[in-house]
């Protein structure tokens, strides 16, 4: 299996990056953390733009950097595509020339990206003869993604490519990135501080916190781990793979199913049978020991088993509880409630999830 190994350190004035990663070099890997946590620096180390980084970086068994043996493959020989926060197009070239820049520098044997299909996926066919100054920011960023993809990289690095765009533009580009990954089969490392983007895109997740990049794994597994509140903050909560089974048009609700359980969410523009990823924030899950006897306004009540109870932190009133409902679900409850319910692993509970809380 192809791996991406990054065991590197970098000291900048006052800032320290410490990465110990060994993740699959396929699918979409999201690098998540707050602003200033070192996400961009990590990406720049992978690209080879930080010459003073030390350690080991290898992709698909190819060593890009190994300080102990003095190996440092320069950026232009790494076959790495990079999409920056800003489009960074060459202003003296047309869109076509920008797109061809990396392509013409790719050895013939390595040219596998179909030009027409990339242009089609990104929807930039009408822009080819124009200059970057005359494009909107969203168009520029799509061109810059195309330019990186057409350089036939073996790894595509994206540094918050949507950060400079407004919400509708983001929604427009996100599916492109997914399609590029699936259809062109390029592994993507995607830096973001937006949980929503990550939940939509990622297969693998890397968490970065104050320069430490050591926690990584499959996104479902990471999001269902206890004790990552420090990294994830308000975004703590499990991700569930579900599919649409019905729409209730009169109530503007969509009914999903996962592992034999039903979940109501606000009406989604999806077809019955479509797969969907649901992020259930732990703070929107509450627990009770018995199913409610009287009618309740809560639509989603799911039977689950307590798997693990997070460590109580002095000074914090809340604890996290990991449940098994066919797949992991996290709930955040107060320590007082934990005490009152006398929860213990193996116990059966009923988890109430507010429909409106689903993403």
């Amino acid at each position, binding site marked *: 299996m192809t791996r991406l190994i990054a065991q590197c350190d970098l000291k900048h004035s006052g800032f320290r990056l410490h990465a110990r990663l060994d993740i699959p070099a396929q699918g979409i890997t999201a690098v998540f953390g707050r602003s200033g946590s070192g996400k961009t620096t990590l990406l720049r180390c992978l690209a080879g*733009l930080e010459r003073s980084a030390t350690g080991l970086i290898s992709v698909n068994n190819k060593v890009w950097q190994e300080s102990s043996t003095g190996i440092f493959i*320069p950026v*232009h020989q790494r076959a790495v*595509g990079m999409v920056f926060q800003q489009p*960074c197009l060459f*202003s003296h070239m047309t869109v076509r020339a920008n797109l061809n*820049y990396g392509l013409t520098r790719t050895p013939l044997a390595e040219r596998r990206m179909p030009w027409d299909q990339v242009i089609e996926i990104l929807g930039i066919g009408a822009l080819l003869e124009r200059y970057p100054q005359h494009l909107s920011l969203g168009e520029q960023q799509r061109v810059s993604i195309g330019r990186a993809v057409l350089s036939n990289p073996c790894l595509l690095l994206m540094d918050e490519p949507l950060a400079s765009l407004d919400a509708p533009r983001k929604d427009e580009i996100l599916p492109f990135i997914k399609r590029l990954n699936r259809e062109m089969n390029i592994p993507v490392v995607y830096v973001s501080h937006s949980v929503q983007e990550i939940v939509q895109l990622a297969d693998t997740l890397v968490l970065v916190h104050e320069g430490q990049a050591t926690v990584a794994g499959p996104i479902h597994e990471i999001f269902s781990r206890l004790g990552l509140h420090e990294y994830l903050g308000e975004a703590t909560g499990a991700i569930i793979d579900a599919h649409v089974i019905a729409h209730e048009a009169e109530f503007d609700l969509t009914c999903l199913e996962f592992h034999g359980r039903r979940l109501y969410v606000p009406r989604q523009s999806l077809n019955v049978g479509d797969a969907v990823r649901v992020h259930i924030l732990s703070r929107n899950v509450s627990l009770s020991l018995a199913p409610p006897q009287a009618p309740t306004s809560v639509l989603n009540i799911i039977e689950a088993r307590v798997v693990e109870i997070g460590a109580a932190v002095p000074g914090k009133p809340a604890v996290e509880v990991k449940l098994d409902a066919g797949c992991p679900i996290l709930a955040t409850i107060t320590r007082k409630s934990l005490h009152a319910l006398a929860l213990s692993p193996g116990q059966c509970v009923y988890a109430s999830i507010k429909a409106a809380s689903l993403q």
Partner: protein
Amino acid sequence: MPTELDLAPLWLSLQLASVTTVLLLLFATPLAWWLANTRARGRAVIEAMVALPLVLPPTVLGFYLLLVLGPHGALGAPWLQLTDTTLTFTFTGLVIASLLYSLPFVVQPLQNAFEALDRKPLEAAWCLRASPLDSFFSVVLPQAMRGYLTAAVLGFTHTLGEFGVVLMVGGNIPGETRVISIAIYDHVETLDYASAHWLAGILLVFTFIVLLVVYALDRHARVRVI
């Protein structure tokens, strides 16, 4: 125009300025790039040395050049051995002197242009498989074109007006070192004001037109050159 007016000094000056400008653009590019990007401690020393001709009296520069380029000088002696000719009082010697004399006028605009460049497109080029040299020619150079125009114009016009250094190093040999400013000085010395007028006028108008064209281009491009 006086019938006997000798235009050879004008052509010689244009020739000297052209050769010097071309050579300077070649040499100054790596120097300016290094100055714009290095964090080395020696940078300030090099910058000060490059700027010296801006403030030094041309006679001082010329005096030292005379020593270095002379038949017993550090450059002049090996040159004499190799080519059997001297560097002083020759066109080649003038070119070498002009290279030094006009160096800051070419290096500084280039350095400014390089420093003003956004580094991101350069990094983007590296990530698109362009080697540092390749990305310099395909990304840096086109984006620093205005800087090159300024450097070329300043280097050219400054060399064209050179006097003190030429007098010290080149003397006044017709067809070899008798450039336009020397010729004008000569005409005034011999009270031939008519010829001096013509040559001075030609130089004035020519230089003005060059600058005018540059500024006009500039306005058109909405970017300041000088």
